[in-house]
């Protein structure tokens, strides 16, 4: 049994983000990390491997050559090997293109389970896992708090408003997991050293029998504007008044917003 965990390299949440004139994020200027939500998928896969359910854990990423760094970091946490799909034609790829390319790479790797995080920390589209499943024509088990494998079946336990749903599907599947799977491990020192010797391949579009034309210029969507979040209005302070006066003013403030 093999799991392929899809890993995206994203700018750190705290990084100072800058945009290029074409409205694409200047990724070289921001500190890059493994998408934190993908770390839960990694953790889930490694737990299944430690339990003996899964023999092999492979990481798959689509990104610029620098994304290899995130794959090395994933390999330092555990797992066996990694594949980076990198091609100049993929710059500015949107969710559809990403899903198309990952689906092609997963067809080639042919794992029983393709596992992803529930969203990426940068774009937060949450579209890729479902799109990959649809393109590949396999079941999609979404938003698992836990993934279990038994026989030729995969199951996720999904938090619902009334408790848990247990959803099962025959292998192969695409699955996504949430931060409920458990805290991702830190890479150990030995893990970091071992990761340097683990195999990593880089594939171009041609290796997946895809061409730039198949991808309709790399995106179906167009970014038309990028802007920072609007500044919050300044905090109102009630100071230097007696408690009675302060209480009235707070009550007025809440009443004006129909909160009381």
């Amino acid at each position, binding site marked *: 049994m093999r799991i392929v965990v899809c890993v995206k390299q994203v700018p750190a949440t705290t990084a100072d983000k800058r945009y290029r004139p074409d409205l694409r994020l200047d990724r070289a200027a921001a500190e890059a990390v493994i998408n934190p939500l993908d770390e839960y998928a990694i953790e889930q896969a490694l737990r299944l491997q430690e339990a003996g359910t899964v023999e092999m854990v492979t990481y798959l990423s689509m990104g610029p050559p620098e994304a290899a760094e995130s794959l090395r970091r994933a390999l*330092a946490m555990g797992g066996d090997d990694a594949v980076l799909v990198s091609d100049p034609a993929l710059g500015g790829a949107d969710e559809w293109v990403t899903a198309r390319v990952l689906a092609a790479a997963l067809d080639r790797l042919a794992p029983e389970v393709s596992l992803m995080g529930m969203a990426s920390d940068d774009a937060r589209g949450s579209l890729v896992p479902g799109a990959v499943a649809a393109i590949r024509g396999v079941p999609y088990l979404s938003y698992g708090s836990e993934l279990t494998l038994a026989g030729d079946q995969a199951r996720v336990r999904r938090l619902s408003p009334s408790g848990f749903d247990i959803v099962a599907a025959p292998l192969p599947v695409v699955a996504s997991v949430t931060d409920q799977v458990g805290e991702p491990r*830190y*890479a*150990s*020192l*030995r*893990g*970091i*050293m071992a990761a340097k010797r683990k195999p990593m391949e880089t594939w171009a579009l041609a290796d997946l029998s895809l061409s730039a034309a198949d991808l309709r210029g790399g995106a179906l969507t167009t970014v038309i504007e990028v802007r920072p979040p609007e500044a919050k209005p300044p905090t109102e302070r009630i100071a230097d008044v007696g408690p009675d006066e302060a209480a009235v003013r707070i009550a007025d403030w809440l009443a004006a917003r129909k909160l009381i």
Partner: protein
Amino acid sequence: MVRELATERIAPRAAAIDSAAEFPWDLKELLAKQDLLGTCFEERHGGTALDGVGQAIVVEELARADATTSLIVIVQKLGALPILIAGNPEQQDRYFPRLASGEWLIAFGLTEAGAGSDVAAIRMRATRDGDDYLLSGSKRFITHGSVAKLVTVFALTDPAAGGRKGMSAFIVETDTPGFSAPRLEHKLGIRGSPTAELVFDEVRVPAANRLGEEGGGFPIAMATLDRSRLSIAAQAVGIAQGALDAALAYAAERRQFGERIADFQGIQFMLADMASQTEAARQLTYAAAAAVDAGASDLAYWTSSAKLIAGDTAMRVTTDAVQVLGGYGYVSEYPVERMMRDAKITQLYEGTQQIQRLIIARQLLRRAGVGR
């Protein structure tokens, strides 16, 4: 990885470790799990065999968050160094795997109440008894003495010959009858690190646990300290960096007279001095680490210089950090007062700053061909 670990898991514990003055067993387990207690051991013993600079960075990043926790890594190496330097393969194979994995901690037992800087003045005795030695006497200021499973102990096998010629080194398992750690010191800093008095009442140690030749203990102790003080330099750099980080963050937020205090030149000069001095100490520490790795004949010159500069830098930078934070720096709500208390020990242990100067001067004279 170490920085992440230090920031996310260790820094949030530092204040509680300090105020409770309790050994952080949870963090010891965490360090063990991340293979950080095995950085000085070979891979065949379960270690990760980092080079000197790598080991220094590990200590530095931990000390940046908490000096007490960094000391767990430092003392694991300090206690093991006599075995690394003088242990035979059988001794190394027997003990290193459990030290590298962090299952056991090890302490270094040299200092006595009457023998600090004057190492040769130790009085502890080791008397031969058949295939064993009987160790009697006491040790003081032994870091981790009460939590370690092993202690490398220095004792006189030939009192008539004195400390320099009559001292031998032993590996002692602390569950041997006659061993006790009856008292811990109450300290100014590194308060979570237990500093124990050790009492040996006819502790029976097999002769197979003697390190090197009988009477060969003094050079082992000196060779150990020549190398281990590099860890203290790295710890001092980490403490200084932690204090600088805290001071910088505070100065960028604190407003007085309508401005951020970081915009006042008086504060900027202080921050600039703190940063450049810390960087100088760091680079000297790395240079010393490289000298040790290369087996330089004058490695003591480098490690003593690094420890001297880094220890003084840590004291100055942490004191200045308290100054930048003003009243807030003096209270335990902020970490810099703890860092200032922790910094002081780096000027004292593993050779006071005055001893470092003696070592440096001796090396200078030797280089000039006028040594004694």
